[in-house]
């Protein structure tokens, strides 16, 4: 049974004007096989949390630790974290012109699995995974994220989730920009991944909408760079009816 543990994590964003502290002491342990939802208003720092775990160079960890199955993550490069079993489904996946989805996926799967998949089984594996997310086979020939609609980008992220099969997956606002049908398809993809693996999932979201499809074991309210309240799935319902104002810092 593994775990992804964040202990008293503080991090700053590096800008031209200097450093600005965003994460102000986050402690959170996600056990394998469990799903945690982190919910917070805009600007609370919840996307920063996702980026810091993945190792984005724009952020600097000033104190605290992140461990994966007891192993220090902060000392690892971005790609080493992915190979160690971390995955971040991005809110805004970037375009990579001239690189086809099939080439990208195969390169990535080869890197994470440590060996190139056999060509014949790979083609079938990719087709099956795309079919499950209702993606047209021609998708594989397109350039990574180039000209993708919002829904296509998110499907492509979940496609990578299912092929890379990480130990812990962070889904950063995967529900944003999706219509109801796309949200259902993407959620089914996430649920299929949860059923077939023993992975832990950290679901970052602003709205409770996606939690109707992906049931969390624990819900954390994230305000101003820290977790202010944790509870069961019912906490999300309370947020839905009462909003984030009840948790606003006293000074604000």
């Amino acid at each position, binding site marked *: 049974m593994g775990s992804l543990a964040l202990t008293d994590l503080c991090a700053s964003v590096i800008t031209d004007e200097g450093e600005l502290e965003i994460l102000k002491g986050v402690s959170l342990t996600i056990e394998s096989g469990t799903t945690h939802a982190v919910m917070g208003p805009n600007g609370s720092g919840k996307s920063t949390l996702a980026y810091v775990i993945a190792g984005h160079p724009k952020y600097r960890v000033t104190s605290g630790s992140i461990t994966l199955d007891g192993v220090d993550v902060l000392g690892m490069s971005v790609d080493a974290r992915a190979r160690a079993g971390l995955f971040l489904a991005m809110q805004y996946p970037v375009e990579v012109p001239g690189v086809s989805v099939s080439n*990208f996926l195969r390169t*990535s799967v080869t890197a994470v699995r440590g060996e190139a998949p056999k060509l014949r089984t790979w083609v079938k594996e990719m087709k099956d995974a795309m079919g499950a997310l209702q993606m047209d086979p021609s998708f594989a020939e397109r350039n990574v994220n180039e000209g993708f609609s919002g829904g296509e980008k998110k499907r492509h992220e979940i496609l990578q989730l299912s092929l890379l099969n990480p130990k812990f997956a962070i889904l950063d606002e995967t529900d944003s920009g999706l219509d109801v049908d796309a949200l259902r398809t993407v959620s089914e993809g996430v649920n299929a991944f949860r059923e077939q693996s023993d992975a832990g999932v950290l679901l970052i979201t602003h709205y409770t909408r996606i939690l109707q499809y992906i049931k969390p074991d624990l819900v954390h309210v994230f305000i101003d760079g820290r977790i202010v309240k944790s509870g069961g799935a019912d906490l999300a319902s309370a947020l839905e009816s009462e909003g984030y104002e009840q948790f606003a810092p006293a000074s604000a």
Partner: protein
Amino acid sequence: MTIAPPVDLSPRLTSLDPDVFDIPTGREVEWRFAPLDSFGVFFQPINDAGFVTAIESSQYVRNIAMADLRSSWLPSDRPLAVARSLAQNAVVVEVPKDCTVAAPIVVQLKGSAARSYQHIEVNIGAFSNAVIVLEHDLELDICGAMVVNVADGAKLTMLSVLQGDKKSTHIAGWHTTTGRDSTFIGCAVTIGGGAVRISPSVTYSAPGGNAELLGLFLADGDQYFEHRIFVEHEQPNCTSRVTYKGALSGSGSHTVWVGDVLVRRGAVGTDTYEMNRNLLLNDGPRADSVPNLELETGDIVGAGHASATGRFDDEQLFYLQSRGISEMQARQLVVRGFFAEVLGRLNQVDLRDSMMAIISRRLGLPAAEATDV
């Protein structure tokens, strides 16, 4: 509103006599970027110079004495005029009319001395279709011209690959004339050489001609690559597309791209677009990009240009690395993707793949993966 003074792209001086052209000093607009200590060796006649030949002759490729060549081409600068006057050999590639050549005609070129003059003539007969690959392995200093005639209704796809060392000097003037309703696709791949200056130009002898000028270059170390394009639209209803992409690394590499397009008064219905993109892989290299468009008529389909030089996109790198791909491999993927657009426009799958393999080798990537672009 102020109106900028026009850039005068014409008339250009042309002559067989080298002395019509002043010896460049570096102050001329055409030579202001160039390292004259390298190119200067070709400003004066070299008496013991060699000449460039095609290593193998074939049905389509011959080496002939310059004296036996009939060519109406006139040099447009001093080194090309010197080379034209002293070259003893001409490489002639000739495809007769109404002839479709299935396999690419591969021409491997070699100089005969440390400094050699080159003259290449390519003639594609009316309604013929051919693909030509010119391979220069740069170990010697070379200066000279390539004159291409694509006759009415013909189509020529031409790929010129400059590989080799990073010291030699290479000056080339390529001049293409397209006939009525003909198509010329020319792609320059510049990887080798220390100081390289290539001047591709296109003129149209009749209406309906199409020219696509493609280029990709990969400069590192102290390499200097200059591509100086001139497209002159004189005839109605012709098209031109210029697409050059460069990637630069190293501490002292420098690339120059100049794209001049002139649309003359009679060239109604012209459709032209030129684009240059440069990718700086690290701090240190310098890329100059100068597009010029001069219109003498407004009665055209379209005319435009674009130029952008940028650093490596850190967000792309992060995205690829977050999928387990190492930084080195992620950079290689992005650079290969950057060039894939240019090579895709050749519409030649085998050539695209072999060029991608060359680029991948240069980037230190296993060639086997290169076919899976």
